[in-house]
């Protein structure tokens, strides 16, 4: 039975000490623990990325040997995908804000939530172990394609087990959120009055639940093949490598939407909060999340256009991929239409949202180039692809996450950061980002292949621009983080609702009390985004 707990103290103050964090059942503390872990891994991944860019500043061997380079991009990919971007928004902001935005005091299964966190830690430990034991981290690329992943002497088994455990963590988080959304909404909050962030997490959770088991079992098969030498995927002992690719992408394409949908949910919160205007096409945004989740299941073959599938299969996958772009475009139009004639308050979170729209658009449109069968044959496995997915994952989801951080920072810590410095950090990040990745698209069209530590001299200029871009981006990142760390200690204290938003999380104190609300949360009249002027 629920017992009454003081609402005077906030959730930081109510209990102290390391154990009160590590074994907490409070969704907010679990969210924050994820935050610190995920940001740390992000920074490790960034350092690896900067190393790669440094290697690529000039043709030939610059700072690392080819094998080391292969290990670096694999570790970079594994960390960025499994330890950073997949958990990022759901595990941090979903955990922290989903219950508050639904007007409740916790997720449906708090203990399961803690278990998810510990599984995440376990998976992270396995990933780090690859650094110190045996022949070092895997050098297969984050895709672990067979047969090479079966043959290489590097720590594929450990990396794959790490991904397996992290998958488990992701499944349990998804399960928890689905039940939370079904059972714990505030009285009167129907599905169609739910915040769009909750909708996007709902769609994401279904993907986590229904796609992740496939990769789980596939990765176990890789382990079995390595341990017992059975030809599951290695053709030299009777296996079928194409089958591996199918199984891998049956998960990993939907996983792209695990990365993208929560980000779209964030943008759907940011835009109305700063345009002070009712969101345009609430239902279109909500249901298009579900549509993306559904159609996203049937497009995985677009990663395999050059693997030797039948012509018919390739055409079908190509068409389906075009279709999945439609609900995505619907959202973009909705966001832009919401801005139209709004009373726009230009604050740092909104800047991130605008950069998201711009960069996600480039990422999405370059995705259509890759979805077009004929074009993909030419740019498959070139730097065009590297440019494309960084625009989607980093320029999209990464920027949405930074936007969310700047938006909810005053709610989580009860203080405001220096807005000017935040904007400078934002500007450097955005400029650096585009200098870093746009040249990659051009390089790809010129024919530079991905996953090499070397290139032909004629690619040099654009590579230098890209590397310089990575430095600008790094400076922006440092400024952003330094500004926030400083604000956490010395920032000006804020009240409940510094942005003047009508979303429910702003009704409670900043930081919130342990059970989230000190007075009964009220639904906004006329829907969650109905601003009255």
């Amino acid at each position, binding site marked *: 039975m629920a017992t009454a707990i003081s609402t005077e103290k906030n959730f930081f103050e109510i209990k102290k000490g390391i154990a009160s964090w590590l074994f907490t059942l409070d969704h907010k503390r679990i969210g924050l623990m994820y935050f610190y872990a995920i940001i740390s891994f992000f920074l490790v991944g960034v350092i690896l990325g900067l190393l790669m860019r440094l290697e690529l500043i000039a043709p030939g061997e610059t700072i690392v040997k080819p094998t080391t380079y292969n290990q670096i991009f694999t570790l970079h990919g594994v960390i960025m995908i499994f330890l950073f971007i997949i958990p990022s928004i759901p595990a941090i902001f979903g955990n922290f804000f989903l219950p508050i935005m639904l007007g409740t005091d916790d*997720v449906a299964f708090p203990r399961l939530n803690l278990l998810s966190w510990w599984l995440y830690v376990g998976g992270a430990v396995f990933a780090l172990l690859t650094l110190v034991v045996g022949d070092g981290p895997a050098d297969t690329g984050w895709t672990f394609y067979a047969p090479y992943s079966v043959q290489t002497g590097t720590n594929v088994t450990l990396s794959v087990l790490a991904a397996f455990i992290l998958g488990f963590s992701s499944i349990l988080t998804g*399960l928890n959120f689905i039940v939370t959304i079904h059972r714990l909404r505030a009285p009167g909050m129907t599905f169609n009055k739910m915040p769009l962030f909750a909708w996007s997490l709902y769609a994401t959770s279904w993907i986590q639940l229904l796609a992740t*088991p496939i990769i789980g079992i596939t990765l176990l098969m890789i382990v079995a093949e390595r341990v017992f030498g059975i030809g599951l995927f290695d053709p030299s002992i009777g296996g079928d490598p194409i089958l591996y690719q199918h199984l891998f992408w049956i998960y990993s394409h939907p996983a792209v939407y695990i990365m993208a949908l929560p980000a779209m949910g964030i943008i759907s919160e940011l835009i109305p909060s700063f345009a002070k205007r009712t969101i345009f096409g609430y239902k279109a945004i909500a249901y298009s999340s579900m549509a993306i989740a559904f159609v996203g299941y049937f497009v995985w073959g677009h990663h395999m256009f050059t693997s030797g599938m039948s012509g018919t299969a390739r055409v079908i996958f190509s068409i389906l991929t075009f279709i999945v772009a439609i609900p995505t475009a619907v959202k973009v139009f909705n966001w832009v239409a919401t801005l139209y004639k709004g009373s726009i308050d230009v604050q740092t979170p909104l800047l991130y949202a605008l950069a998201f729209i711009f960069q996600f658009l480039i990422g999405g449109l370059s995705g259509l180039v890759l979805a077009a069968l004929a074009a993909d044959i030419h740019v498959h496995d070139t730097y065009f692809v590297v440019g494309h997915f960084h625009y989607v994952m980093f320029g999209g989801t990464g920027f949405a996450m930074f936007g969310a951080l700047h938006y909810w920072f005053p709610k989580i810590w009860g203080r405001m950061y220096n807005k000017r410095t935040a904007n400078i950090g934002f500007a450097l990040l955005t400029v650096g980002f585009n200098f870093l990745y746009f040249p990659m698209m051009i390089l790809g069209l010129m024919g530079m292949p991905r996953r090499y530590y070397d290139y032909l001299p004629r690619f040099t200029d654009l590579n230098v621009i890209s590397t310089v871009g990575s430095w600008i981006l790094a400076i922006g990142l440092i400024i952003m983080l330094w500004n926030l760390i400083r604000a956490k200690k010395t920032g000006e204290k804020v009240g409940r609702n510094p942005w003047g938003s009508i979303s429910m999380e702003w009704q409670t104190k900043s930081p919130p009390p342990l059970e*989230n609300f000190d007075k009964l949360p009220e639904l906004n009249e006329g829907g969650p985004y109905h601003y009255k002027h």
Partner: protein
Amino acid sequence: MGHLVLPNSGHNRDPEANKMGMWLFLFTELLLFGGLFIVYFVYRSMNSDAFLHASYELDVIIGTINTVILITSSMTIAMSITALQKGNKKLAMYLLWATQAFALAFLVNKYFEWGIKIEHGIFPGLDHYNHMPSGEKLFFFLYYFMTGLHALHIIVGGIFIGVVMKKVQKGEVTGERISLLENSGLYWHLVDLIWIYLFPLFYLIH
């Protein structure tokens, strides 16, 4: 000193939520095996003769006995739920013990079945196995992998039921607060269901 308890608090007891959580978990289990079924069908269609030949090596009798055992155990656990709902704790406990006994019997059978195969050298790394054509190797590998994973689920299910039995004993799970027992039942039915597919795939299709 303020405090507030929300009507929709996540700390309220909510059997409906527990059951929903369990169903969602079962979906993931089905998909986990689903991946293996895909692999099975792909390799069966590529090596149909070898799979056919290899499947003759399996003992249909033991397989059938195990199928009967599992179906019966599904029945006993379902009956124990009804018994507890009607307030007959003693009968419910007996039926749960019976379920556990069936689970154990299933594993013992499996142990002997695998044991005989391994004695004949049919296991990755052993002599007989190494000399098989690759299609038959795949068949047996999938056989060990899939029935092994299934046996693991039997063990987990047995532990789960054991925990629930302890709680029934202590009166923490009763006719009114039965969702944990129901969930263990759901899980057990799933384990049963997967076997219903594994059995024909490996033992019966000729």
